[in-house]
């Protein structure tokens, strides 16, 4: 009997141990590879990227391989979940895997990977020519004054509006709020962005703060600057919007898709979203605004300067453990070439990083949102390029969410935000 009881306890213990073991994770720590090794070596490489939804990578890789039979690129496709892509990269870097030569990194991972010493600094022989690129995209690949990642695709927020109700789009936030009377008269919501508690909230709050001239952290990705009066004014715009009903209460649950659906159903006058909405709102069977919506740059504080968008998109970086860095470098340049960039935007609707493509007449007829998007990206500010980005975005989300819901004053929210970011970078 005693043995039976013991075995039950032992069984439970084993199960418990197994559960806890699952959450252990890998080991952190530092120590990158040798950034001066294999710089001129050529040979086959592997390109790692998340799921290739619009089938753009394979044709490109085939094209490259046809031209470079001795330096073939193998495409390693990851899952379509950003978190899983991130963790997959971390695991391979920790294992010092030389099989991941060129990796596609989300703009917000650059700081973390660079500070871990996993990315090859793009200096010396590997210096990229950035003159033809939109400047903010380069900034998103730069940490601590050194470029670690080459911009590959970009993205910026734009303002969707109902041109049947508002003939000229508002240039400033105040003008937009005035137009809210129209929405009120029509019985629809006025403005919405992405305000659910996830990465999109950080994007929207950063935009509000940056538009008013504030910042979240300094250029070193560490010094906290969010407790400024500019940041306060920015966040206050959003909290007032919720308080006064200009932003409908349900927008606190919106991610990109819910906002798009509300806009397509005719329930919103203004919507901040990414360019992908454009084609859907034009073609969706359920869209009631097919011919009655227009696009404009995000509203600013004053009429002469549009609002500041957060930057989306991906950068390509060379692993410090790569054995064929010269080939990897050539592949980065290939990804930025005009031909490739054009293919990205026509085939995959991925916003180019080359400035000139936005002025291409034939592209503009095909994708009428390009000129608006260019304004957006030119004025964009990347989210903080910081090794502590996960802690920063958490601090921003938690505290701004509380402020938007009215559980916390803007002053208190920014104070807590600053304190939380400080503790992360002090750790």
């Amino acid at each position, binding site marked *: *009997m005693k043995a*039976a*009881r013991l075995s039950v306890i032992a069984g439970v213990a084993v199960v418990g141990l197994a*559960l806890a073991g699952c959450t252990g994770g890998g080991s*952190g720590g530092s120590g990158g590879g040798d950034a001066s090794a294999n710089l001129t070596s050529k040979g086959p490489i592997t390109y790692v990227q998340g799921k290739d939804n619009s089938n753009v990578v394979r044709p490109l890789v085939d094209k490259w391989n046809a031209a470079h039979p001795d330096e073939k690129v193998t495409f390693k496709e990851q899952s379509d979940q950003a978190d899983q892509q991130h963790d997959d990269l971390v695991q391979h870097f920790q294992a010092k895997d030389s099989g991941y030569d060129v990796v596609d990194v989300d703009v917000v991972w650059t700081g973390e990977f660079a500070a871990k010493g996993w990315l090859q600094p793009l200096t010396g022989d590997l210096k990229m020519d950035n003159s033809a690129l939109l400047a903010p995209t380069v900034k998103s690949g730069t940490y601590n004054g050194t470029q670690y990642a080459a911009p590959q695709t970009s993205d910026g927020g734009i303002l969707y509006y109902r041109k049947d109700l508002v003939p000229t789009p508002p240039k400033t936030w105040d003008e937009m709020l005035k137009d809210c009377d129209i929405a009120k008269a029509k019985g629809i919501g006025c403005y919405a962005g992405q305000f659910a508690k996830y990465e999109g909230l950080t994007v929207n709050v950063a935009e509000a703060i940056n538009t008013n001239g504030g910042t979240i952290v300094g250029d070193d990705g560490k010094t906290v600057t969010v407790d400024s009066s500019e940041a306060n004014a920015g966040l206050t715009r959003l909290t007032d919007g919720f308080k006064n009903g200009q932003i409908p209460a349900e927008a606190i*649950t919106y991610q990109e898709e819910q906002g798009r659906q509300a806009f397509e159903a005719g329930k919103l006058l203004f919507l901040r979203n990414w360019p992908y909405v454009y084609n859907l709102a034009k073609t969706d069977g359920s869209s009631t605004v097919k011919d009655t919506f227009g696009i404009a740059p995000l509203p600013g504080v004053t009429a002469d300067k549009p609002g500041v968008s957060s930057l989306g998109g991906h950068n390509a970086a060379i692993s410090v453990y790569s054995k064929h860095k010269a080939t990897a470098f050539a592949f980065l340049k290939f990804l930025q070439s005009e031909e490739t960039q054009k293919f990205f935007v026509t085939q995959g609707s991925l916003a180019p990083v080359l400035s000139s493509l936005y002025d291409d007449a034939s592209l503009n007829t095909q994708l009428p949102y390009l000129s608006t998007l260019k304004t957006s990206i030119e004025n964009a500010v990347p989210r903080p390029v910081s090794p502590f980005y996960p802690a920063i975005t*958490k601090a921003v989300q938690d505290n701004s969410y509380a402020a938007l819901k009215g559980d916390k004053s803007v002053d208190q929210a920014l104070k807590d935000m600053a304190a939380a970011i400080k*503790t992360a970078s*002090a750790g």
Partner: protein
Amino acid sequence: MSTSNVVAPPGTQNPKSPQLRAGVKKNRRQQGRWALYLILPTLVLLAVVIGYPVVSAIIMSFQKDAGLDPATGLFVQGGFAGFQNYAHWLFQQCAGPNGESITCPPGNLGSQFWNAVFVTFFFTVTTVVLETVLGMWFAFIMNRTFRGRGLVRAAILVPWAIPTAVTAKLWYFIFSVAGIANAVLGAHILWTSDEWASRFAVIIADTWKTTPFMALLILAGLQIIPEEVYEAAKVDGATTWQRFWRVTMPLVKPALLVAVLFRVLDALRIYDLPAILTGGGGGTGNATTTLSILVVDQIRQGFNSASALSTITFILIFLVAFIFVRFLGTNVVRTQEAQQKGAK
């Protein structure tokens, strides 16, 4: 105890000769060695898949997370942390700007620990109680003989057959602002955003999904109760209520307790359902953040601190399981034995 008296003490009446006795002894020892060899692969496997991760997680939990070298902007190893990571979670101690210890500000994961403990235990208690009551009811229905019983059994089992991630997404659509839940109720509830609405959303979805599991295990317990017992009780004039409390409950209790234990352990480490349904949000942003969600959040910010948190979580779950087995589980074993004796 009975198998270990290999050699009888000298002087007692033993018919075997010394040589024979030595042979037996050798045989036994060989057998023992063989047994060891046979279980060795299992032990090695357990050490690799369970022992190593747990020990390494505990070792990591005493290391500081990597910090930045101000000169290069690169990460450097944090070094030995002592109990700092544990104090971070248990007492909300964070590093201040000058390295001193301050209370973790909101927005830092450390400040959410006790909230996560509350949420986890709240979910556990409410869902397990609901699932037990409903599961029992379902089991009684499925235990009856009536036309269409197969159909009812299959229908009740459907939610359990759906993967949790799909369940969560399904309820996510139901609970969206423009979803069915609000349409049916004629209400305008922000299910994934309001503090208590979001908690109830998780509880409703979890109950919907896991009640069939409870019902199945309880049904298994019900089916071993012989019909004669009920007949005897009826003959003795027991009312339906008395039959339930005096006959059914004691006999179904062992199966019920095992089912409850499984569910409690399961509920204490709940992750996927709230993570997908609400993203751990609601209220001021953390109304449905369970301990497991907190661990995963922390992994992205620092492995070593996450190891400390997962060790704390493990100890908490272990304590609950231990209390269960100690105070109720003993009962499980005894009643089963008693039942077996009674049946033979």
